[in-house]
């Protein structure tokens, strides 16, 4: 599988070339949020706002009212925890086209509880007018900017940086409000988001070999959450539904799926994989994913629970999986 580096850094420069109204705001994390190349390319459109996020959010509101597109970049925690009031009143209430790029979701940073965004989707999803998107691979980072540009209101993006795998074919861009179908099956409906999708793909490969049939959808749009493919997949699942997210179980993907199922009167079992209403601490990503049951093995164990049978899958079975870039199954299905 292809691994790409600094995808957003390069993409933003290329994409913003013919968009003079796009302005980047930084809160002292320019290199860490991959906007250093933008700063070099377009110094007149780059504004360092310092470590002062409240002011930055309201400033962005002012810029957006005058017709600019402020692209705010910082760690996710500093967006929604530090400046929520400002996001609500200066950006979300007036439905202004600010873009909030929040980096270091959940276990992707060893920076500890102060740096790990574990409830950002819950918080931003609750805010009226806010669109909430999360990227899961390099293709989504590359194609995200075009996908959200038509949105007239604010968009919160749960972002990835650094070395990112290409899970999805480069010719299949992120589409707002459309989940990607990664495998077709009828035993279990599996919905994963963000970095959990790679873990889920690892597990579904092995599960398929054990004759477990899984309908796997990767979800990148958390709000609006109205893709009919979600309910369709859940309705077809023989044994039940599983959600998998690098986020607290309260208010994220698992909650959104539960809401959709309950409102449709779909009486099926739902197992939510995610952080069980707990803060986490500073450690490596693989360690945290194992420690907090967010990895491929955690998914296998939950599948076994739903099936009521042991599949005799070990950690080494999962580690042996070599993932290839996936074509969307939805496309084949449409044919």
């Amino acid at each position: 599988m292809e691994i790409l580096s600094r995808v957003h850094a390069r993409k933003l420069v290329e994409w913003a070339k013919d968009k003079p109204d796009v302005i980047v705001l930084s809160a002292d994390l320019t290199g860490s949020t991959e906007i250093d190349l933008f700063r070099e390319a377009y110094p007149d459109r780059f504004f360092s706002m310092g470590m002062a996020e409240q002011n930055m959010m309201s400033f962005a509101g002012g810029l957006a009212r005058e017709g600019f597109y402020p692209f705010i970049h910082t760690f996710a925690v500093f967006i929604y925890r530090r400046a929520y009031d400002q996001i609500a009143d200066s950006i979300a209430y007036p439905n202004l086209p600010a873009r909030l790029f929040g980096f270091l979701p959940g276990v992707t940073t060893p920076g500890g509880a102060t740096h790990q965004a574990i409830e950002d989707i819950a918080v931003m999803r609750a805010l009226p007018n806010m669109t909430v998107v999360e990227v899961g691979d390099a293709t989504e980072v590359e194609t995200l900017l075009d996908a959200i540009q038509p949105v007239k209101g604010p968009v919160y993006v749960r972002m990835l940086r650094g070395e990112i795998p290409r899970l999805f074919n480069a010719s299949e861009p992120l589409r707002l409000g459309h989940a990607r179908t990664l495998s077709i099956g009828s035993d279990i409906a599996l919905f994963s988001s963000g970095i959990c999708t790679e873990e889920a793909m690892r597990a579904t490969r092995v599960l398929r070999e054990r004759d477990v049939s899984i309908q796997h959808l990767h979800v990148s749009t958390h709000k609006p959450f109205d893709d009919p493919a979600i309910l369709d997949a859940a309705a077809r699942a023989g044994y039940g539904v599983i959600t998998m997210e690098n986020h607290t179980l309260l208010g994220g993907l698992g909650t959104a799926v539960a809401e959709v199922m309950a409102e449709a009167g779909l009486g099926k079992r739902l197992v939510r994989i995610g952080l069980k209403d707990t803060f986490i601490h500073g450690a490596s990503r693989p360690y945290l994913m194992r420690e907090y049951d967010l990895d491929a093995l955690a998914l296998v164990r939950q599948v076994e629970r739903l099936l009521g049978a042991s599949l005799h899958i070990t950690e080494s079975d999962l580690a042996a999986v070599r993932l290839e870039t996936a074509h969307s199954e939805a496309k084949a299905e449409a044919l």
Partner: protein
Amino acid sequence: MTMTHENGHWQDEVRRVAQGIRRRVLEHTIAQNGGYLSQACSSAEMLATLYVKVMRLGPSIAPKVPPPFPGVPSQHNSAAFTGAGYNGPHAPDLDRFFLSAVHYALALYAALIEVGRMAPEGLAQFNQDGSTVEMIGAEHSPGLEVTGGSLGQTLSQAGGSALARRLRGETGRNWVFMSDGEFQSGQTWEAVQALSFYRLDTVGVYVDVNGQQCDGKMTEVMNIEPLTSRLEAFGARVFQVAGHDPDALAAPTELPPDGRPLFILAYTNACAGLPLLESRRPKLHYVRFKSEDERQTFASYLAAMN
């Protein structure tokens, strides 16, 4: 724009408008048995000087009688509007006005009426269900263009507008009306820091330093003084003026901008023009009459004002 009143000097017009603000707000407070009365007393000359002398505004482009609330802004509501039109059209060379201390909304509505930008009957909608003439104004309220009710956010928003306008080559100035209580908030200082850093000297801030806040005297709630030297240390250009003197209020705006954001600290008396209010100290934030007798006393005073 310098407006010379037909029958005298602009200072006389400021005094007339200021007296009108006090009279309308007092009248309203008596009728409703409550209101943000002290804010009108302390800010009357400031708002009047801004509208009569300081701000370069075009004529109002908004309906004289404020239209009903159009619903909150959203992708499904194309009818949402702001109250900016009462301050004239947005144009590159014209000024903008941002009311930060939105608890002063009643005083602002009264000012808009006195300078002919809103119909007097508009005030009858104040705090009525379905009206835009809200008690704590928001962006849809007459004369407002941002939502600052949480306090401490408007200066940053105005800074964003000022930066955007500079990027577009616009020359109009951006006036912000703040209360002194907002200088207890960290965001205000973040904003001053950024305005100084980016040399946004098109931003001019009037601060009503009346020393009062919700809990009472600011020196007992949380002191902000010495405000002048604090702001200067943050890189602002600061003038401390007598807040009920039109000449003193207007003079700093005549100076050519010098790269620093301009702060005019208007030291005011929250009972100015209404000595009866002194009896209510130290709690002046929101005046609700304690008895029918007290209300009658204020009503008699109002009758004498007319």
